[in-house]
């Protein structure tokens, strides 16, 4: 800019490298910034210097603290100039510098003057700048102007104030919440964007008040919202209301008509938002889906890539749950396979794979083969995953699909991609018995020329498990032993283990495998030698054809039924001591996401200071917490802690949830309490538990919470004694009792006198599932066979009419509280029968495995066959009792 302007018709090639910022240097520009201090300001020159400074910042240059302060003070001088253009640059510069609190004070008065200026551009921009850099204390001074600005007749000013309000709500919600009258007025604005911003702010102010949001939606869906953006917001809020309403009432879905009418809006973004909202409704019916699918289908043939992408992406998601609804779009989808945009093509392919029927598989596979070579790895992974699920859906087609997978396995590709293919083949081998031998050979071929150590070792391990069970195990030996010659030490060690497994499992091969293992004793790597020695000595060093001892097999090759993540944490916590590390002390519980946070979304508004600092929810943490309480320290080892259960409605004065801790002879209820009233301090908080409906339990101790100030959660405990090892069940009613003291929220002063008060909580139940711990097994079939049929109990149950098979399956799973294995908790769409595998550990450390077979018959009658195997016949019976009484 500082350089002379070149005439337009000059030859372009000569100035290919021309840039007004060529050779720009920070030090020099900072020097130039001195012009800001000139008594006679040159606005044009000043603007140029600011542009240069902004250019530097934009290119990633940083200013030191001192430099930034100097520039800031210099820039503040420019408020003297009345040049509009320069002022705009000053605003930008101040925002970029994000000054510190004491610097903000310098510009506050200038900005406040601009905020009340007659020039609309000044008002709007000054508001945005001031709100960006200010903190809460200043806000009270300017609040009056901001409220005025929200209802300003200039839409730019109103929008500036509203958007600033949205940002400020994150830091100072209590102030912004006072503006709701003005914001409400702005929602009625005739200016499209003002309406959008006002609606966004109003919703955020009220988002925790379900009733108010519902009212807002009801009134606006009747009226006319002008801006497409605001209409999109309204659709989002409406779906939120629908989602919450659906849990309480049944029958016709409220507001569906509104969503449907949005499908005829003139703005494409609104049509799409509505269509997507409909497809994502909980339990959407085919009738509700149809109009949405129709508009999305129209988008598929649009000339705009963005529209095609949006439509195909949404339909792809629909195809996962409602493949039949999408089949109408198949012809349009097929033409998208050759789309220029590879993302669109991939989404189209994978959608077709989900919706296609058995007869179209071969044709599709041909099309995909042509197309695989020119897409990125991440899309190839999507395709591979789609093919995997297709293969599980049409097991008869495994041959062509397996061939496809093995072909792409040979081609070039990154690790993630290869891993996806290998994983898919492994799953197919596991689930489709016919595919096993074929698939194993493909994997063997792959490791002949595999550059990824991780994959080689995984495949070798898998070969060791599956190979010996095939009709001709000997043919794999060559592939495995080749690894011992050609690979790095990690793979060689894995190969040795695999060889040993063949030796141990297939007696006929034993002598020959031993010859090979002995050669490994001369390997250059100590791990390889160690493994060879271990196996030679334990499996039977004489190499005769004798059956390997079962204990040895278990020791060497048995599965480790402890989650690896748990053993890792335990080992990290283990400090070298006299006592050796005890593997039995490792918790076996599979850690799941804490449910409580999902259950109560938005319960703690994000702006309300610190995030909910609830008690840590992992088992380790619970154990630590409980053992630190002297009353409970002699209860022994914690068996299981359940996920928190809410005992209060959301948005009530006091929020309480409970965590059940199960011990061998005791049960401890941990009540997590939160006081949501700023004007109150609770003291001596206890929960009075009435256990009259829980006969086998006797109250032992209770640990009150001394003080519960506003918004800082605390815990009180109640302990019960119960018969040892018996899964006693019962219902407990709870009453929160406390002394309430008034608090002045502004000063924080607490009144001396308190009043005793009570607060009714919801009931709590201890159910049989509380005595079962979720413990997964890596290979269900092996585990099932190794437990043996000694204590197997099989029975059949009629579950009566059920909403769907999936609902019945998840109901039984949650009733038993066990860990679903191998992904069997997912029920394929429209299937008439399903097998679900569960595993767990019953109190007293008894391993339990459950095989559930469901069938649905005619009008939603679900029947179930339950087979239980465990190490104790009482426990097997107990599981049946749980189901029978559930």
């Amino acid at each position, binding site marked *: *800019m500082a350089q002379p302007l070149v005439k337009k018709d000059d030859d372009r090639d000569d100035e290919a490298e021309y840039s007004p910022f060529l050779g720009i240097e920070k030090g020099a520009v900072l020097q130039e910034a001195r012009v800001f201090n000139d008594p006679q300001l040159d606005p044009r020159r000043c603007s140029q210097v600011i542009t240069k400074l902004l250019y530097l910042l934009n290119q990633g240059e940083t200013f030191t603290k001192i430099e930034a302060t100097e520039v800031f003070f210099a820039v503040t001088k420019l408020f003297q100039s009345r040049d509009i253009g320069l002022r705009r*640059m000053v605003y930008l510069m101040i925002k970029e510098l994000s000054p510190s609190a004491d610097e903000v004070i310098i510009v506050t008065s200038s900005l406040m003057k601009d905020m009340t200026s007659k020039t609309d551009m000044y008002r709007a921009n000054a508001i945005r700048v001031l709100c960006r850099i200010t903190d809460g204390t200043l806000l009270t001074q300017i609040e009056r102007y901001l409220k005025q600005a929200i209802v300003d007749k200039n839409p730019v000013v109103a929008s500036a104030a509203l958007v600033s309000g*949205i940002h400020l709500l994150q830091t100072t919600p209590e102030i912004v919440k006072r503006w709701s009258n003005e914001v409400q007025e702005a929602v009625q604005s005739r200016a499209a964007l003002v309406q*959008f911003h006002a609606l966004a702010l109003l919703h955020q102010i009220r988002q925790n008040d379900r009733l108010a949001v519902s009212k807002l939606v009801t009134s606006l869906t009747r009226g006319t919202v002008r801006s497409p*953006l605001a209409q999109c*917001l309204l659709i989002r809020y409406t779906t*939120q209301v629908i989602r919450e309403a659906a849990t309480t009432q049944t029958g016709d879905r409220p507001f569906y008509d509104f969503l449907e009418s949005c499908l005829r809006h003139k703005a494409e973004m609104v049509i799409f938002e509505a269509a997507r909202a409909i497809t994502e409704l909980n339990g959407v019916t085919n009738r509700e889906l149809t109009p949405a699918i129709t508009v999305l289908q129209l988008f598929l043939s649009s000339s705009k890539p*963005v529209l095609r992408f*949006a439509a195909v*992406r949404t339909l792809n998601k629909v195809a996962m749950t409602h493949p039949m609804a999408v089949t109408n779009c198949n012809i349009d989808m097929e033409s998208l396979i050759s789309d220029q945009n590879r993302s669109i093509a991939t989404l189209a392919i994978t959608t077709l794979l989900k919706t296609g029927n058995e007869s179209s598989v071969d044709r599709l596979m041909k099309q995909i083969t042509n197309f695989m070579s020119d897409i990125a790895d991440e899309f190839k992974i999507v395709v591979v995953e789609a093919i995997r699920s297709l293969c599980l859906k049409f097991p008869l087609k495994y041959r062509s699909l397996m061939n496809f997978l093995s072909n792409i396995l040979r081609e070039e590709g990154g690790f993630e991609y290869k891993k996806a293919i290998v994983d898919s083949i492994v799953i197919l081998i596991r689930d489709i018995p016919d595919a096993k031998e074929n698939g194993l050979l493909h994997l063997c071929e792959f490791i002949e020329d595999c550059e990824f150590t991780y994959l080689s070792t995984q495949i070798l391990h898998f070969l060791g498990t599956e190979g010996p069970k095939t009709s001709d195990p000997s043919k794999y030996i060559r592939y495995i032993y080749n690894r011992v010659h050609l690979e790095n030490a990690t793979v060689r060690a894995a190969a040795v283990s695999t060889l040993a497994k063949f030796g141990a499992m297939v007696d006929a091969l034993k002598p020959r495998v031993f010859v090979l293992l002995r050669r490994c004793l001369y390997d250059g790597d100590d791990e390889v030698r160690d493994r060879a020695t271990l196996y030679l000595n334990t499996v039977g060093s004489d190499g005769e054809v004798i059956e390997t001892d079962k204990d040895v097999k278990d020791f060497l090759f048995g599965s480790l039924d402890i989650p690896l993540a748990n053993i890792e944490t335990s080992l990290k916590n283990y400090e070298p001591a006299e006592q050796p590390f005890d593997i039995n002390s490792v918790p076996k519980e599979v850690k799941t996401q804490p449910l409580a946070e999902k259950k109560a979304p938005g319960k703690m508004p994000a702006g309300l200071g610190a995030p909910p600092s609830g008690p840590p929810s992992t088992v380790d943490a619970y154990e630590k917490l409980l053992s630190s309480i002297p009353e409970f320290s002699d209860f022994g080892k914690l068996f299981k802690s359940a996920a928190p259960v809410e005992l209060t409605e959301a948005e009530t004065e006091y929020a309480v949830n409970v965590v059940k801790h199960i011990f061998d002879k005791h049960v401890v209820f941990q009540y997590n309490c939160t006081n949501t009233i700023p004007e109150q301090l609770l003291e001596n908080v206890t929960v009075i538990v009435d256990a009259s409906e829980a006969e086998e339990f006797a109250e032992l101790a209770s640990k009150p919470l001394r003080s519960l100030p506003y918004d800082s959660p605390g815990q009180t405990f109640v302990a019960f004694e119960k018969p040892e090892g018996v899964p006693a069940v019962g219902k407990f009613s709870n009453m929160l009792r406390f002394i309430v003291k008034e608090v002045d929220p502004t000063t924080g002063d607490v009144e001396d006198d308190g009043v005793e008060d009570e607060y009714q909580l919801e009931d709590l139940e201890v159910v049989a599932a509380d005595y079962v711990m979720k413990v997964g097994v890596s290979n269900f079939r092996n585990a099932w066979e190794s437990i043996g049929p000694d204590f197997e109990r099989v029975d059949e149950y009629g579950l009566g009419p059920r909403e769907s098979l999936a609902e019945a399956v998840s109901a039984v799973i949650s009733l038993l509280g066990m860990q679903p294995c191998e992904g069997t908790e997912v029920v394929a769409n429209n299937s008439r029968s399903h097998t679900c595998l569960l595993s767990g550990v019953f109190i007293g450390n008894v391993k339990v495995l459950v095989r559930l077979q469901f069938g649905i018959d005619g009008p939603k009658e679900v029947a179930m066959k339950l087979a239980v195997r465990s190490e104790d016949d009482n426990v097997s019976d107990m599981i049946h009792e749980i189901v029978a009484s559930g």
Partner: protein
Amino acid sequence: MVKDTCPSIKNILLLDSEGKRVAVKYYSNDWPTNSAKEAFEKAVFTKTQKTNARTEAEIAMLEGNVIVYKFVQDLHFFVTGGEDENELILATVLQGFFDAVGLLLRGNVDKKEALENLDLILLCLDEIVDGGIILETDANVIAGKVASHSVDVGAPLSEQTISQALATAREHLTRSLLK
């Protein structure tokens, strides 16, 4: 939560034909450092480089983000949003930015012109999105707000770029003040 809230923009990028920055603005904390930002820009640029986004805006997904983009001459325009963002809203923002730059640069949309008028480009970004929230999507309104102070006197604008006209206007003003 994410979906119930306001549509939000994660960043707007204006890169040249080699993937270098002309002007960029980030609104989210997904890329905390300059090197993270540069890595993202490089990834976006490489991924989209070979596509034809000159007639219609194109779209891609990268690192869990949706990116809409459009090219003209040696300039590449990008708008990034979250994975679940309504693609058409992002496209509207892109179109607003693209057209506003076209208006401000009087149709001469290329890197040289953009750098010469970087002040206008930066103001333009500032008027489109504020802290991730869409401020305005109508190109005429955006350009109008950016250039509002230059629509001034009967200067022979036809032969000048806006910034030139702006400069003359400012000079006039200064002179009159100095008198």
